């Protein structure tokens, strides 16, 4: 990838915080600074895909021509409640327990 391509869209601190919120990541000031600079470099490098005019090209989401897969709607054995809760950080009865509140 070319190193000194013009930066089309620099990501500022406000945008960085917005993306971190969407990703539910609490980043320290230190991390914001370091990741922010790296992120700009990475986005700049991957923006190379925009050089190609691909208006007539269909997107690929999956490399095989698998169209759809139907399974019979029959009950099968699955995890027990105890198995499902075996790795829970916190539980109450048959439920995962989480702290209250927050968005």
């Amino acid at each position, binding site marked *: 990838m070319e190193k000194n391509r013009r930066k089309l869209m620099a990501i500022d601190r406000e945008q960085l915080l917005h993306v971190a919120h969407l990703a539910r990541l609490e980043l320290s000031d230190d991390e914001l600074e370091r990741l922010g600079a790296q992120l700009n470099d*990475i986005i700049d490098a*991957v923006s*190379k*895909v*925009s050089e190609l005019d691909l208006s007539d*090209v269909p997107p690929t989401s999956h*490399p*095989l021509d698998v169209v759809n897969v139907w399974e019979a709607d029959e009950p099968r054995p699955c995890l027990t409640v105890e198995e499902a809760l*075996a790795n829970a950080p916190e539980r109450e009865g048959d439920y995962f327990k989480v*702290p209250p509140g927050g968005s």
Partner: protein
Amino acid sequence: MIDTLRLSAYDALELVRSRQVSGAELFAAYREAIDRHDPELHCYLHVCEDEGGDGLPIAVKDVIGTKGIPTTAGSRILEHYVPVYDATVIARCKQHGLRVLGKTNTDEFAMGSSTENSAYGPTRNPWDPTRVPGGSGGGSAAAVAAGLAPWALGSDTGGSIKQPAALCGNVGLRPTYGTVSRYGVVAFASSLDQVGPVARTVRDCAYLYSILAGRDPCDTTTVDLPHGVELPERTDLNGVRIGVPTEFTEHEAIEPGVRALVERTVDLCRELGAEVGECSLPRSLDYGVPCYYLIAPAEASSNLARYDGVRYGYRSPNADDRYEMYTRTRDEGFGDEPKRRIMVGTYALSAGYYDAYYGQAQKVRTVLIREHAEAFERFDVLLTPTSPTVAFELGAKAANPLAMYLNDLLTIPSCMAGLPGLNVPCGLSEGLPVGVQLIGPQFSENTLFAVGYALEQAIGFDPVPPRMAAAV
């Protein structure tokens, strides 16, 4: 005395079948080799006890879920996670009598090319412990090279089986997308992730692939193989058309030592009877890496949303409400590389940017598929270097994510196109292994094994690192 350093899986099977060695003795021999060498190499994150049986031991990359055995994906966020079910590939291995020897080190969530991104410390290359084994499956590749496992399972998203196999001098297959189940495997980028075999010989690799491949009702992206896996036998390449994509052999990032060995291998193909010609994949090389580093992070940002501290894995104790629990759990649990990719991916998928980034990258993917399809109108197999360089020193690229991403320059394009790729060792440069990558059309694994086997026999590469031999 069982010499694990020189034993192929095929030979080990013969020893057990002919009752010269018991399954328990075999397992113990590998455990002994691990006890002796793993403190230096750090291939394993967890070593298992022998639970009996006569099948071969197998090492398993720690992104593959194993019932009752910790599965961390190289991340703190899964430090104490113990799966309650086996991944389908593990169930298949067990049906064939294979026994899990241990879980191997990986870059965190398989994100990396050196295994330095593991939260549990790097793995070292058995050929030179000051160097990386490649990644993300550096633990599996190094374990096989050092005789700490007869073979192993890896996973490959953009080169995580092929590139470490090249840097450690073993044989690794990234299968055709959809031929091996991803059920029970920690998801990184779902449209790219594939589990595959890592082995000492092409035959071992083919045999292990025959165990792994096939449709799984639990993974609806899988299909049945159109034909069975054939163990390779032919030592000539008569009638095989091999294409050499010039951009992949002449790129400036390729070290002279690597280039010379790949050229010699191309000459060898001719001597073995192959029709060799040049071809061109210009856009695959120019746009493969940028395309990958949009699609993989975008899918990763979605897949890694599940690590929220609710159902399993780490939960931050420093949170007063639920929002803080999510954000602090993820900040404290993820290392730098997953955070970078989650941020890149979330940004690329966010409102207003989707079409320009993820949407455009998916169209580039179509371009790469077409470019490869065109090459396969003239050729059965494409041959390129697997890695532009030999194993580099620990820390050499750790501070520069973009430099690290270029390690996968040559492996990424065919991954994007869903194509199978096989690494075969082709010699040593500066005392370190170099591998060639054989790429074929979808479901052409048998052809790759046949070409790989003929080359392997003709090259006569010795997979034993001299310093490991000296240590025995």
